[in-house]
């Protein structure tokens, strides 16, 4: 189920083939066999790259090419208008002095590092609740999944904004408890909780993956734990968590990378201004503003590469530390 094992899987295929193709003739015994195998391999290569042509064009034209070009831009003062000059590390140096940039880093990191764990905890808790019974869960599973499909849309951002505005349902229900804060949208400190709630609301996608993982935990392990006198908490710590750790790893990695890129909700809730007081100025919103409102594309490219490197570092740290906390059971595929 993990990507890594599949990549490794696929990687062995051609190697095995080449070894087979290059080996001295076995069953055939005569000289023509390897030549025929080589011809066969060439035909496989031709077919492979033919089928892969659209993807390869897309990869070079829309992914690899732009990626390298944006690396180049990061060292220039490129803007749609005016002359482009190579300015070395100036963009990165300016970033360090850019308080707005630091603000966007702070708010994005808080969003990722606080929001993602809460979202995953909610996903795991509800998945375990659902897994508690085997029948009659279909409806709930679908209902809980629905927000994941629509949560990032402009419609939901608009609704979220309306729900948290003065006199909206959140405000009026808080007032029942004597808490009168009015609309959240105008208060910078409350934008982040509002955005995190929106993210947590979309817990359905990781929940479905957790649920699939929970279904694969062998029942014998729980029985064995019971025999050893483990209570529900002990079973959770010693059976569920280790067995589920590959799925937790997968969800954590994808959700974090996803969270770094939040855009539409922040843009709509802040009306594209990043306000109030920079509270909706998430990293991608600021990047967009720099690139397309101020047309400082060199600077924005440098920002994009900082994001890429940050995401890369997080991924590397996760893969490096995964040995100590991700438990792969014996079935090597």
């Amino acid at each position, binding site marked *: *189920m993990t*990507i890594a094992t599949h990549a490794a899987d696929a*990687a062995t295929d051609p190697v095995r083939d080449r070894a087979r193709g290059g080996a001295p003739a076995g069953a055939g015994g005569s000289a023509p066999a390897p030549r025929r195998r080589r011809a066969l391999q060439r035909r496989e*290569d031709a077919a492979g790259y033919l089928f892969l042509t659209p993807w390869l064009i897309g990869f070079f034209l829309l992914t690899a090419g732009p*990626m390298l070009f944006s690396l180049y*831009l990061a060292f220039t003062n490129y803007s749609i208008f005016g002359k482009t000059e190579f300015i070395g590390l100036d963009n990165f140096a300016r970033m360090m002095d850019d308080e707005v940039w630091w603000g966007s880093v702070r708010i994005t990191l808080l969003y990722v590092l606080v929001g993602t764990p809460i979202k995953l905890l909610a996903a795991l808790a509800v998945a375990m609740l659902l897994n508690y019974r085997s029948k009659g869960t279909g409806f709930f599973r679908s209902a809980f999944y629905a927000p*994941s499909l629509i949560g990032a849309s*402009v*419609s939901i951002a608009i609704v979220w904004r309306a729900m948290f505005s003065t006199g909206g349902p959140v405000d009026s229900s808080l007032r029942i408890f004597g808490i009168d804060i009015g609309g959240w949208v105008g208060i910078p400190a409350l934008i982040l909780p509002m955005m995190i709630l929106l993210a947590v609301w979309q817990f359905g996608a990781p929940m479905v993956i957790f649920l699939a993982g929970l279904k694969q935990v062998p029942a014998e392990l729980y029985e064995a734990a019971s025999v050893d006198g483990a209570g529900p908490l002990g079973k959770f710590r010693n059976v569920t968590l280790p067995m589920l750790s590959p799925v937790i790893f997968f969800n954590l990695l994808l959700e974090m990378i996803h969270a770094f890129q939040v855009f539409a909700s922040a843009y709509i809730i802040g009306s594209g201004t990043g306000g109030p007081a920079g509270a909706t100025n998430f990293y991608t919103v600021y990047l967009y503003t720099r690139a397309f409102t101020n047309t400082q594309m060199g600077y924005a490219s440098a920002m994009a590469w900082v994001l890429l490197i940050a995401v890369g570092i997080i991924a590397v740290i996760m893969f490096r530390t995964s040995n100590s906390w991700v438990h792969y059971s014996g079935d090597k595929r």
Partner: protein
Amino acid sequence: MSATTVDRDRTATRTGSLRRRRTWTTVAWVVAMVALTAVILYPLAWMVSASFKPTAEFGANQAFLPENPTIGNYFKVLEGVGGVPLWRFFLNSFILASLSVVGIVISASLAAYAFARIRFRGNGAWFAVMIGTLLLPFHVLIIPQYMLFRRLDLVDTFVPLLLGKFLAVEAFFVFLIVQFIRGLPRDMDEAARIDGCGHWRIFWLIILPLIKPALVSASIFAFIWSWNDFLGPLLYLNSPDNYPLPLALRVFNDQTSSSDYGATVAVSVLALLPILLFFIIFQRFLVEGVSTQGLKG
């Protein structure tokens, strides 16, 4: 009373209490689930209810249901914004989403077949590259892509939004179909190979019919993601005639939200409606697709 009857009595009461406890946990479970569903679906219910509130009731009537329900909001939004009628935005969104589906189904299934079934040299390396693009933040690409399409004079057309779909740029879809093809038994295509079928015929006659379920989930995701996409249209489309719904919604929101909540919420409902219908019809397919492929939506 003999010892055995006492024993039997005891086991009887024990199983009885066990059954009772099981009933109680079931009841507690159902109550918890229903409560959770209510909380999670509340924003959607609120949205629908609010779209029938006259604008004057916003902030004033804090009850869930409107006091004087009206469909006026819906009539008002049919006019659209900036002189462009609402149906135009729907049409644009629909064209974009349908062409995305076509592009992704064709290009992703071709690439997926190559990765899953053709033993060409470099398969493993390219596959790893493809998976790598899955983790790549999209924002690194937007500036050069924008410059490219500007140079080609394609800004304010649908091409920049669709080209990537026809070139399998979104690795999610390729991966989803690769996973599905790998799950298929190989005997059919191996038999066809022995009979002298080339890869094209195996793909077209054997694999393609077998991967229909994966293509259906890919299509649904492709449609919904395109329908919801905001950043792409925001980057490339300038004239209101070309706006898909998310951009139109944003204009609505910026222009009227303070003065006309009702209308803004009504447009939001209309924009979500096709997706919610889609979801209700295909929910099994979607949720199962996500859990078996091990990828998120």
